[in-house]
């Protein structure tokens, strides 16, 4: 393993972690002023801000980890060439969808409240377990970020859990909507645990988490919640994926267009 491949791997990995959080935060932020109640509005906005906060830390570290442009990879995301120093804003606002590395589950549209809650359940359980493990990462800075984020993720998971149980085991209408959300979102969970050969060096060095290693503990967290919510895990063979390689659904580019428009129109704008 050369220093270059490890630096590239670290850069990619930090973007994967950061993009998951950033895109999730942006989607939750769309509920702002539209949630089913004022209290829930603030709750979702809080969670969105936690996610954006974690994304800032991760993308800042990514920017420092790679002083230069993103190297191209045969099956990887499109290379990102930036004329100037990298920072969190450049990485968040100037990359296109094919340069983003988040899982597709994060970028799917919010749908109704049940979709948003089920997605948050599936994703925050994954994020929490990943941060739990990364809190012991050999990379001290990743360990520090994960140590902070795991507490926030635990609350996101708790919020999604109490709502999933109430919606799933609620009225006929809420049960039907929540089951429909689970049916639609479940296939996208395969990608969360897809093996990533590019991570081999970092995993071996104790810096990163091997995604397949999280599946068992994730299932142990999520399935009892779904059972209590009287929901049925769908039997499906369709397993979309590829977000880590820059392959996304059509929805991500629309999300980025909205998120990035201000920065692109007024580079360096601040308040």
């Amino acid at each position: 393993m050369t220093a270059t491949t490890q630096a590239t791997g670290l850069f990619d990995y930090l973007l994967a972690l950061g993009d998951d959080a950033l895109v999730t935060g942006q989607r939750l932020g769309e509920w702002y002023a539209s949630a089913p109640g004022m209290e829930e509005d603030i709750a979702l906005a809080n969670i969105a801000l936690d996610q954006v906060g974690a994304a800032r830390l991760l993308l800042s570290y990514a920017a420092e980890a790679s002083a230069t442009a993103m190297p191209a990879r045969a099956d990887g995301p499109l290379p990102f060439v930036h004329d100037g120093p990298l920072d969190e804003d450049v990485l968040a606002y100037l990359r296109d969808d094919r340069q983003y590395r988040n899982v597709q589950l994060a970028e799917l549209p919010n749908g109704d409240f049940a979709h948003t809650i089920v997605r948050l359940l599936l994703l925050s359980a994954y994020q929490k377990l990943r941060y739990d493990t990364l809190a012991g990462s050999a990379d001290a800075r990743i360990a520090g970020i994960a140590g902070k984020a795991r507490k926030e993720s635990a609350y996101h998971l708790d919020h999604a859990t109490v709502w999933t149980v109430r919606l799933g085991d609620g009225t006929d209408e809420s049960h039907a909507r929540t089951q429909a959300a689970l049916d639609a979102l479940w296939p996208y969970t395969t990608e969360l645990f897809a093996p990533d050969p590019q991570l081999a060096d970092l995993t071996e060095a104790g810096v990163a988490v091997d995604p397949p290693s999280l599946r068992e503990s994730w299932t142990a967290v999520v399935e009892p919640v779904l059972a209590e919510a009287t929901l049925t895990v769908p039997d499906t063979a369709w397993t979309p994926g590829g977000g880590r390689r820059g392959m996304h659904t059509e929805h991500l580019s629309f999300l980025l267009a909205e998120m990035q428009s201000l920065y692109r129109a007024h580079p360096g704008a601040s308040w």
Partner: protein
Amino acid sequence: MSTQPEPLWEVFVRPRRGLSHTHVGSLHAPDATIALRHARDLYTRRQEGVSIWVTPAAQITASSPDEKDAFFEPAADKVYRHPTFYDVPDGVAHL
């Protein structure tokens, strides 16, 4: 979305260990578990507390403003209810 309003809950927050829970406001929630979580998001965002109580607003029996005179005014002229009303004789160490 249901058009039925969710029940109202009163929120009490203990700012620090050793202090008592203080009423901080109210919120709407479908049940106690969610009321507690909403209270966390609404009233302890800036580290205001270490413990939260929520109680259904309907379960609180409150005195009425109309009863104010009958309830509270009779206490106004009973100064002997205050410990400061009594002179403590010199030399009394423990009272």
